[in-house]
């Protein structure tokens, strides 16, 4: 058992160390090369367009599920007027960023790992290097930035679609009309809630981008190697996102307590 845990710990440290070094390379390359935003914008457009239908579809259903679940609980306390606020708050705070990042990991993360892995095992990345171009700059930076920026865009669009879907479902299944639904939203969310959702989204987007690019870029061993890279990218991304969800929730709730404390000190609203 001890040996197993030692091996697991060693493997986890090795994996995180590799990821940190790779992130360092991306950061260094991004900072040392100025400005060509063309490839990044092309990736943002491509990723956002490819993922939008999936995000919209999932968003509507996730919103609907939350409405149905919250409605059961709120109805017990005759508090259905809070349905809109509670639903939107849950979507922005946690469910939205989490679901969108899982979808991104499944769709774009797997695609990126497979694409880069294939380029690696068919020597395309070596060829780029031999032709005097830095493959991190040419291949990785646009994909990395593209995924991170797209995750924020998709969060915004996904939330919009999800809240709209929630309103429709709340209307016909709970009898809460659009106005009642919308009027309770400001009671539950603030600018801080949006910023928190965005922070989570950027964090998870970074994880998806980093793990997918790393696993694809370091793939080896032909078709099996590419398959392994894609599988590992999916497994590690989901694992890291769940861990990051806990950590970001802790940080955000700590910041929320802090802001609540300062508000009390200033004599403002609690």
């Amino acid at each position: 058992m001890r040996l197993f845990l030692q091996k697991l710990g060693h493997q986890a440290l090795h994996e995180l160390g590799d990821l940190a070094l790779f992130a360092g390379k991306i950061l260094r390359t991004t900072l040392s090369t100025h400005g060509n935003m063309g490839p990044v914008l092309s990736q943002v457009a491509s990723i956002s367009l490819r993922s939008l239908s999936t995000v919209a579809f999932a968003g509507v259903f996730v919103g609907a599920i939350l409405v149905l679940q919250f409605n059961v609980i709120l109805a017990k306390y005759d508090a259905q007027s809070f349905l809109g606020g509670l639903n939107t708050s849950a979507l922005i705070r946690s469910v939205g960023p989490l679901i969108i990042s899982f979808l991104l990991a499944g769709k774009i993360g797997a695609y990126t790992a497979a694409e880069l892995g294939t380029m690696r095992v068919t020597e395309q990345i070596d060829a780029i290097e031999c032709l005097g171009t830095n493959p991190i700059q040419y291949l990785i930076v646009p994909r990395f930035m593209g995924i991170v920026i797209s995750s924020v865009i998709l969060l915004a669009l996904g939330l919009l679609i999800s809240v709209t879907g929630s309103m429709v479902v709340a209307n016909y299944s709970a009898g809460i009309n659009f106005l009642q639904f919308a009027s309770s939203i400001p009671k539950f969310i603030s600018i801080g809630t949006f910023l928190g959702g965005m922070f989570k989204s950027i964090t998870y987007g970074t994880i998806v981008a980093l793990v997918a690019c790393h696993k694809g870029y370091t793939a080896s061993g032909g078709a099996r190697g590419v398959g392994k890279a894609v599988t590992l990218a999916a497994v590690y991304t989901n694992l890291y996102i769940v861990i990051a969800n806990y950590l970001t929730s802790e940080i955000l709730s700590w910041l929320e307590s802090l802001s609540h404390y300062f508000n009390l000190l200033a004599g403002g609203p609690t």
Partner: protein
Amino acid sequence: MSIRFESISKSFGPKTILNNVTFEVSKGEILFILGKSGVGKSVTLKQIVGILKPDTGKVYVDDEDVTTASQNALADIRKKCGMVFQHPALLDSLTVLENVAFGLRTSRAPLSEAEIRQTVLEKLALVNLGPDILQSKPTEISYGMQKRVSLARTLAPAPSYLLFDEPTTGLDPITTNFVNDLIFDLSRKLQVTSVVVSHDMACALKIADKILVLDQARILAHGSVAEIKKSREPLIQSFLSEMLAEPTESLAPRTEGPGIPA
């Protein structure tokens, strides 16, 4: 102007691929590296352009140490060396034109779009391909054509050194002869130094100036074609005896080749 390996050792995990290997390739020379699969032929080639680093030893290109070169110095070395990979290694998302132009766009002396297009057409013509495939994606042309486009891409920036990793694998006999003639012509007429990794002893005897045979992580033999032919080493004898089945005309050494203007 040469490529020099000094006491190179390279291992992958517990497996030693190269052990204390030393050799030199002079300007304009064609060196064939032969050996069984997995003896480190491709590893040797990739160390010349710094894609792989040796565990110990030094690799020099034009007296510049590749093993300790900075990223910028390494980029300069790579611009002098064109490498043809075992796979065509063309970028799937780019057209044939963009693939062949790839190295030209990153060159230190910027070229106009018209100059780039002209060079691309010239290099494609050199490998017997016409302008009709310029806008095709690599997946839309045959494997043999992909290999030739890959060769054109390598030739486009006019490198001083050409490194070939099994350039004729998967090609038909006519294209194989064509590629071998091209390597010979580039060396004789443009003084391009070539290092060719291959299994093909017949081809080596036909166009090589020198042959290096790798076996069990070391150099088994290194010398001129005549010296290699005289070797009593069993592996070399086995390579030579394999060739007895080949048509005798393929063994006749090349003396000159048409195609490339001197």
